[in-house]
């Protein structure tokens, strides 16, 4: 994040993976990296928030319990509205996904932290989990009939050999676009913030603080905007998961 002032190594420095506990299994480097550390931190924070807030289970919720209940009801409502009532079983899945991405995005907004959602491999793994799960769910629920998803409705038979591959490609696009959307938003936002905070320092040093304050004000505005993007992208990921779930469950 806004680390460009300190190690003036460029705006992409913040994305570098550093092994905290080096570890090799066979030929594979499975070091516990800063990325993994922040994933663990996010998971622990979610678990703490959810368990500590519902432990007391007060009828009139306190602050933490309110947060937990609001988040849960938000996700449960989203799943009900977008994936249909039969998708209620998947509320925990979507909730976990949403919270993990939200915490990953928001933790990255704290200076000196690492944003694990700014790495495509992380977002792609999440998107692939959704994709594989939805596909298996569709096949389990509908059997071979699931593949009628790829046959568009009301199309002349002559065109089917052309349209079915296009539909299949469109289906395979899902994990790619889902992961690129989250990764690109986070990476672009954090790079932009680092670049502008770098401007603030260099312009302030070279042209006086009166000039340097302009990019600083911009960074302040960008910080607010990035917090918004962090929440929106977690929401978009979750809502698209819901739409895919509805596809697999209802199959139109």
């Amino acid at each position, binding site marked *: 994040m806004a680390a460009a002032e300190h190690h003036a190594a460029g705006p992409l420095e913040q994305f570098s993976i550093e092994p905290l506990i080096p570890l090799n299994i066979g030929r594979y480097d499975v070091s516990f990296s800063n990325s993994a550390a922040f994933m663990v931190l996010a998971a622990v924070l979610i678990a703490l928030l959810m368990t500590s807030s519902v432990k007391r289970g007060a009828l009139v919720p306190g602050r933490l319990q309110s947060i937990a209940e609001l988040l849960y009801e938000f996700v449960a409502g989203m799943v009900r509205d977008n994936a*249909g009532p039969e998708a209620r079983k998947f509320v925990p899945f979507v909730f976990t996904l949403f919270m993990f991405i939200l915490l990953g995005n928001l933790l990255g907004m704290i200076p000196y932290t690492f944003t694990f959602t700014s790495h495509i491999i992380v977002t792609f793994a999440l998107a692939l989990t959704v994709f594989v799960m939805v596909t298996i769910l569709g096949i389990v629920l509908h059997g071979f009939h699931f593949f009628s998803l790829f046959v568009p409705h009301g199309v002349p038979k002559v065109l089917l050999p052309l349209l079915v591959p296009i539909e299949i490609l469109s289906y395979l*696009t899902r994990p790619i676009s889902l992961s690129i*959307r989250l990764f690109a938003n986070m990476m672009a936002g954090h790079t932009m913030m680092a670049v502008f905070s770098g401007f603030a320092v260099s312009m302030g040093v070279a042209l006086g603080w009166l000039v340097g304050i302009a990019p600083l004000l911009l960074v302040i505005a960008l910080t607010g905007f990035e917090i918004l993007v962090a929440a929106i992208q977690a929401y978009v990921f979750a809502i698209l998961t819901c739409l895919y779930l509805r596809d697999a469950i209802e199959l139109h």
Partner: protein
Amino acid sequence: MGSGFRIGVDVAAALAVGLGIGYLLDVWLGTKPWLLVVFFFLGAGAGILNVYRAVMGMGYQVGFRKSGGNHDKAPPERRDDG
């Protein structure tokens, strides 16, 4: 800005998937440039389809038939009883 970016990503992703599949099939079957070309155009088609669906408000559903007159399969009252 958000929806424009979303739709742009959809086109690029469809093209990338098409090119990737075409290239891998080419390597596998030894038909060097041809499947790449074919899948490039299929990927472009899929990208246009994605854009069409996104713009027409049909969500991201593959083969989604909302406007195809198939409403009776999912009666609207099911949305309320959840």
